[in-house]
Structure formats: C-alpha cells, structure tokens
C-alpha cells in the first residue's frame, strides 16, 4: 500500500509521545518494579510503536521495538523483574528509536546505521533473565487478562495521538467521552456517520493557529481604533454596539490564546529520564517531584524555555545535589529531591526548580568571580550574599570545580538567563549553604498581546514599554526637578527614597533631537527594572496603559537592541516597543554597577568626613604609607614592563583602546627593567589616569581623622591608620599633575 506522508507524520508525532511516556514509565518503574498497570502500559506503548512501524515498513524500528516489547511482556507477566540493567537496556532502545524517528523525520527513510548492538543487548537481557527463549513468549495463555483489566495507563491519556496543539488536558475527556453520548449523537445524525466516533477533538496545524492569533491581533487593533473613535461620539446605538464588539473581541482573544496553550507537563515529562541519567552518571540518587504540571503556557514560550529548564535540571543534579555518602554524613537522606513547581501568579507563570543539595557558598562565588576578573575585590566585599550568588548568571561564570561532561557543555547559566530574558522573563536564584538552591523563573503568559505603558518622547513620537518592566512613575515639577536631580560626572541621578536612580533620557538614548532645553520644565520619570537593577527613563509625556499587539520588527531592524517590536496604536499610527534591557545596556546603566557605587560613595564621603571610609593603602616613592579613598579608585592594574611605552617624555600604556598616562607623583623607585608596574587607575575627564605605585599594602575600613599639619605636595594631610601614620593623597592634585604632564607633552 502506498504510504501517505500524512500517516508517517502522524506516526512520528505519536512515536515521540510514546517514547516520552515510555521514558517516564521506565523511570517510575525503577522505583516500583512490580506496578502491574505501569508495566502493562509500558508494554502497550512499545507494542503500539512496533505495530505501526511494521506497516510502514520501518524494519529497523520494528525489530528494535520488537525485542523491547518481548522484554516488557515478560515483565508484565511477572517472568522477569525489572532491574537496572534491564532499564538501561530499554532506555537505550528508546534512544535508538528516537534517533531513527528523527532520521525518518528529516530524510523520509530509516538511517543506514546498524542497530544490531541494541537488539543483541536486549536479546541477551531477555535470555539471561528468563528460562524460555524469546520465541516462546507467545506460549502465555493468560496474557490478555491483566492487560484487559488494566485501567487506562496512569494519568496519561490513552495513546491517542494528540498533536502539539491538541494536548490540552480537557481533550482527554473529550476523547474518552461518555460512550452513551457518542452513540446518541451518531444515531441522531445519520449523515454524520462517516465522522469517526473518536473525532470529537481536532488536530489543528500550528501555522493556522499562528495565523488566527495574528488575525485576532489585528481585530484587537481595529477594536481599539473603533473604541477611540466612538468615545468621541454620542450615538448610544453605536456605543452599545461598540461595547459588544469590545467584549466579544476580548473573549475571542482569550479563546484563541487558549488554543495555543500547552501544559508545562509536556516538557517536564522528559525530566525524570534526564534526572535519572545524570544521577546515574554522577553516582547520585535523586528523586524528582513535580507540582503544577497542568499549568498552561503559550506554545512559543514552552518551546523557548525547554532548553533552559533542561539545563537547570541537569545542573541541579550534577552540581546541586551531593553524593549519597556526603549527604548521609551531613544528616540528610541519601536520596536528593529535585522539586519542580509551576503556578500562575499576577498574570505571569512562575516556575521554581528547587534542590535540597549543598547550596551555593557566596564566599566561594566571590572568590571565583574575583579570580576570574568578573568583579573587583572591593565590589566583592560590597556585595550582599544574594548579589554574590546571582553572579552565577554572569557571562563565563562556572562554579563547578571540575567541568563534567554533564553540565559543562559550554552552556552556562548566563545563557539560561539570556534565553529567559529574551521572552520577557526573569530569573532569580536563592540558595542556603547546606540546604539547597532554588531557581525562580517568571515568564509572561504569552508574547503576542501584552499590557504596555504608552509614552511620548521629546520629539512627539510614541513608544510602548512592556508593563512587566515597569515599577513606578515619578513626576517632578520644574523646581523640584532642578534640585532633586544630581549630576555626577556627567551622569544624572535621581534620589528615589534614598537610592540613587540613574537616569536615561529617552531622546538622548535614541539620539533624537530635543525640542526644549532641560531643567526648566516638569520631568516625567518612568522607573524601570532590567536585570534586577533599576533606572529611570526620562520621557516627555506619559499617555496611558494599553493592551498592545506585538509585531516583530523587519529583518533590517532586528539588530537594533533598543526596540523589541512594534505595535499599531488605536489611531492607526505605529509605535515602537522599547526593549528595556537593550535600552539600559545601550545607556550603560547596567553591568556598570561601579559607576553607580562610585557616585554613591563620592556623595557619601563628601557628606561625612568622619564617617568610616574604605581606604586603599600603598607605598610609592619616598612615601612609606599613603592612602586613597577606594571610592575614587576606578581599578587596580598591573602592567607588564613590556607594555609600558615612552611617549613625549611620559610613560604610557595602551589601555582599553586608549592611551593611559602613568603618573609617578613622588618619584618612581620601581625598577624600570622589572617585571611589572603597579598602578592605581582613576577616571578622569572621560578617560583614565594611572598613578604608579611601588606596592599596594592593604584595603582598610576606618574612621579617619585628618591632621592637616604635615601637608606636602599631593597630600591632603596625615592620619593614623592601623596605628601607623599614613598620608592621605589629594587625588585632585594627582589628576592635575597628570594634566600638566599631558599638556607639557603636547606643548
């Protein structure tokens, strides 16, 4: 018979589902090897694949599933007890079948690979563990009895193929609809007999659903336009018709959105197998628990979070849960528990992945981060434990002391974070040493229609800001604005409830022309959150919140990181949707916590002379002990001698695409031919200046009382620090000296 490609497609969809189910069934059976209904169900699943494979002339598939089925049938009949070897064998069978199915999907035929090894392995297992050879498996007269009685397999729906779309739980009920009901409807409609009894549910092509979603989006736009137009009219008939249109559109939107929803259990179903494999490989014992499998998510989102979630799960087993021996030693159960939880909250989906493992030690993280140059020593000291733990999301950060082949796949937690943020989600991590680690993910329900704040920039154009990023709105009247906004090194900050909020002017960030001068009118600040940091976006006008339909940007604009998409407004004009994270990065208010901290500290030190200060102690030239407030230091560097070049009577190094002058304030005792030069780098006039020192001594946190008696060049005065007289450096003079040297060079 000619095989219809449609049937092959169905077969493959079915096959993948069956394999996933077989995966979870086997893992469950390992815990409970005698569970008759699970065994029957696993057998039936293998049997189903085999049957169809035979018809479709997939010989290899048929052969492999056939030996697997034999094994399963023996277990079902109690002639063989499942042990780890058998499970491993069967899992290998599943992998082989999956591989073949994927090949068939791509090439339309079976691969030429030889799967003899798997077949032999399964046969050996079969023969080893049971007296009668496999050929006699048929001599089992009572075979159907347990099967027949076996209730529908666990909570999983009957193997009735349900495609991606049709996997919504209520469908099971439709499929297994009340038979009486099905009979009646059939009898009632004789013309309808051709309709299969089971076809009360439909499979729908995802493309079609996508198209419907787009159309609903358009409808929402049209509705918004009509709402806007009728709001200006007084006709009551029109008003009530509009109201109706409004309601129906909302219902329709919700309905279409539901068709795209899938339970998160669809991706979770793979995890028991993943956990088992990883645990076996690392010699650990881990049990997986799931809560909220039925939580629905948009299909696009389900796909987007699949890989990040898998990575997190692998990570948790590989790095999170300790070896059984260590666990027992620490008084925990030898078996670790990985708990997955999903639930709706505040219009978002929350997913939590918690392990009861060793937890993350913030001290270790700090040390590693400093060693890898992700942060400086001083930043590490300032960080809260939570901030430190969040460093695992920093690019290129990996805390595992040995990179295993399980998690060390070149995909770090930074990729997980990026992927989740790409779909408008957020990820956070909490951990307690000895108690475990919990990852919390928040993602939007859908990406297609989102609530947004509409704002106007200084040039009159409107932009949409996704509501998820929005924290609050602040309006400052002209006089207040003048005093409340602080300028630190060219950047503007607004002190919001004691915290300095970096400000970004939208028209400047987007390089639009500004019509009015600043400072003489009221300021609207949209407080936004990106990457767990806050910043204020200064906009001209705040319009309204609105449900907007997200339209992707054209290819040409894909590279523009400040825009996430576009939408059509009620009046028919197009508004761009701001990508808050991209905007923050572009305006460098993120990832540059130094800027903020520094500014913060500069203000603090200016305000309180006698307050405790963090000081950097060093030795330079004739001065044995010098101190500089750490807050004024951009970074500490060590330059190898060969990097130092001589230019116009000045020592310079090439530093971050710039030329960095090395100032030797008090003479330079360090050996010019020596291996390296230590330097303290300052930010100065949008560039850097380096002060050459002989040796960095220490970093201390002390209350300093300055005595101005001993003032010398470049020194403010002296103080007693750590019971020793220490001279405080006048940074402004160092910078002035640098300027003199530079201009001297120019002249």
């Amino acid at each position, binding site marked *: 018979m000619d095989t*219809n490609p449609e049937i092959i497609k169905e077969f493959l969809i079915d096959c993948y589902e069956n394999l996933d189910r077989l995966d979870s069934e086997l893992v469950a059976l390992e815990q409970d090897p005698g569970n008759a209904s699970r065994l029957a169900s696993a*057998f039936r699943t293998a049997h189903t694949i085999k049957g169809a494979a035979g018809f479709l002339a997939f010989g290899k598939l048929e052969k492999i599933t056939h030996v697997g089925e034999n094994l399963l049938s023996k277990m079902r009949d109690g002639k063989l007890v499942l042990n780890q070897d058998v499970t491993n064998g069967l899992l290998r069978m599943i992998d082989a079948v999956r591989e073949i199915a994927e090949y068939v999907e791509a090439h339309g035929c079976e691969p030429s690979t030889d799967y003899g090894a798997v077949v032999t392995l399964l046969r050996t297992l079969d023969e080893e563990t049971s007296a009668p050879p496999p050929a006699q498996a048929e001599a089992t007269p009572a*075979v159907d009895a347990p099967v027949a009685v076996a209730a529908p397999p666990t909570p999983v729906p*009957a193997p009735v193929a349900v495609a991606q779309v049709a996997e919504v739980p209520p469908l099971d009920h439709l499929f297994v609809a009340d038979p009486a009901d099905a*009979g009646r409807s059939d009898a009632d409609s004789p013309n309808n007999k051709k309709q*299969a009894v089971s076809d009360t549910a439909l499979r729908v092509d995802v493309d079609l659903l996508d198209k419907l979603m787009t159309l609903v989006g358009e409808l929402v736009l049209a509705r918004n336009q009509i709402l806007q137009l009728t709001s200006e009219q007084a006709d009551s008939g029109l008003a009530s018709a509009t109201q109706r249109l409004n309601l129906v559109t909302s219902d329709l939107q919700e309905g279409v959105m539901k068709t795209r929803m899938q339970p998160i259990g669809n991706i979770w179903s793979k995890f028991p197998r993943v956990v088992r494999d990883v645990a076996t490989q690392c010699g650990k014992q881990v049990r997986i628990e799931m809560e909220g499998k039925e939580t629905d998510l948009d299909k696009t989102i389900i796909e987007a979070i699949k890989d990040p979630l898998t990575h997190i799960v692998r990570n948790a087993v590989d790095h999170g849960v300790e070896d059984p021996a260590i666990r027992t030693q620490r008084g925990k159960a030898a078996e670790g528990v990985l708990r997955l939880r999903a639930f709706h909250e505040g219009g978002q989906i929350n997913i939590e992945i918690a392990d009861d493992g060793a937890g993350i030690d913030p001290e270790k993280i700090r040390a590693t981060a400093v060693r890898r140059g992700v942060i400086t020593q001083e930043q590490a000291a300032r960080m809260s434990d939570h901030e430190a733990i969040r460093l695992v999301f920093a690019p290129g950060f990996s805390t595992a002391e040995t990179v295993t082949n399980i998690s060390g796949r070149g995909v770090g937690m930074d990729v997980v974070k990026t992927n989740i943020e790409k779909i408008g989600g957020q990820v956070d991590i909490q951990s307690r040493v000895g108690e475990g680690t919990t990852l919390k993910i928040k993602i939007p329900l859908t990406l297609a229609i989102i609530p947004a704040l509409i704002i106007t920039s200084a040039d009159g154009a409107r932009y949409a800001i996704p509501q998820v990023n929005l924290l609050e709105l602040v309006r400052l009247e002209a006089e207040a604005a003048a005093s409340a906004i602080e300028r630190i090194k060219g950047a503007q900050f607004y002190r919001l409830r004691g915290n300095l909020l970096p400000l970004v002017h939208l028209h400047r960030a987007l390089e639009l022309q500004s019509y009015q001068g600043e400072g003489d009118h009221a300021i609207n600040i949209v407080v936004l959150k990106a990457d767990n940091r806050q910043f204020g976006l200064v906009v001209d006008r705040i319009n309204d919140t609105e449900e907007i339909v997200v339209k992707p940007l054209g290819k040409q604009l894909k590279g523009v990181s400040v825009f996430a998409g576009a939408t059509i407004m009620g009046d028919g004009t197009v508004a761009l949707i701001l990508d808050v994270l991209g905007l923050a990065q572009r305006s460098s208010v993120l990832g540059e916590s130094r800027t903020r901290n520094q500014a913060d500290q500069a203000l603090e030190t200016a305000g309180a002379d006698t307050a405790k200060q963090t000081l950097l102690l060093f030795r330079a030239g004739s001065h044995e002990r010098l101190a500089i407030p750490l807050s004024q230091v951009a970074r500490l560097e060590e330059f190898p001698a060969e990097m130092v070049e001589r230019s116009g009577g000045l020592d310079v190094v090439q530093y971050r695409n710039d030329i960095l002058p090395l100032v030797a304030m008090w003479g330079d005792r360090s050996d010019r031919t020596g291996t390296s030069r230590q330097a303290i780098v300052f930010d100065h006039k949008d560039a850097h200046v380096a002060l050459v020192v002989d040796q960095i001594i220490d970093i201390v946190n002390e209350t300093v009382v300055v005595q101005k008696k001993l003032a010398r060049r470049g020194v403010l005065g002296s103080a007693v620090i750590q019971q020793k007289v220490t001279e405080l450096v006048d940074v402004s003079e160092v910078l002035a000296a640098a300027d003199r040297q530079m201009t001297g060079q120019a002249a």
Partner: protein
Amino acid sequence: MKALVVDDSRVMRMLLSQMLKEVGFSDVAQAQHGREGLTHLTGNPDVQLALVDWNMPEMSGIEMVEAVRKESSLNATKLMMVTTESELSQVERALTLGANEYVMKPFTKDVITDKLRLLGFNL
C-alpha cells in the same frame, strides 16, 4: 460498504482505514477502544466489518468481541481480529468467543483482501 476500525493507536487507525478504503469500503469509521467500538456498532448495525485490535484501554478487543456477540442485532457484523504473533495463542479463544477471522500484522492489502473474500465480501 461500511466498516469500523477499532484500535487505540491513531496511526494504526489511519493505516487500516486507508487500506480498507483502498480495497473497496466506502465508509470507514474509527474507534479508539472496545467500548467505543461497541457503541458505534450498536448505533450502526449496517456496518458490515470491524477490524479489532487486541490490546486497548477501557475495553480490550476480546472483551469487545464477547460483547458484540451478545447483541443479536449485530449477528451479521463480521469481526476480524488484528493480532501480532505474541497474541496468536489466543486467536483460538477469540474465534470461540465469536470473532470471524484474524489477520496478523503487519499485513499487506492482498492478505487482507483474501481474508475478506473468505468472509464473503465481494471485493
């Protein structure tokens, strides 16, 4: 000519329906387990042939055969068991309970045509 395919695998239902259509059945309905099959047959006594799978949830093939044969209105309906070699030993039981014929999968169009002719279908 009307037929019914009873199988819990959607793919099998599609395959068998296609085959039955190719050999000359104009109207092939599908049911996903024995109970559904039974309901369909009682509502449609003019269905002449039912292909019945063995292992199904809700109601197995053999239970369905037993139940169909208790309905006098369905005396004329031919029941053909679709089996695999591992169920061969039970075919006898199915035949005793009232199945008319069996066919072992995978089978070709020729094989099933032959078997259907034996049952008196004019193909």
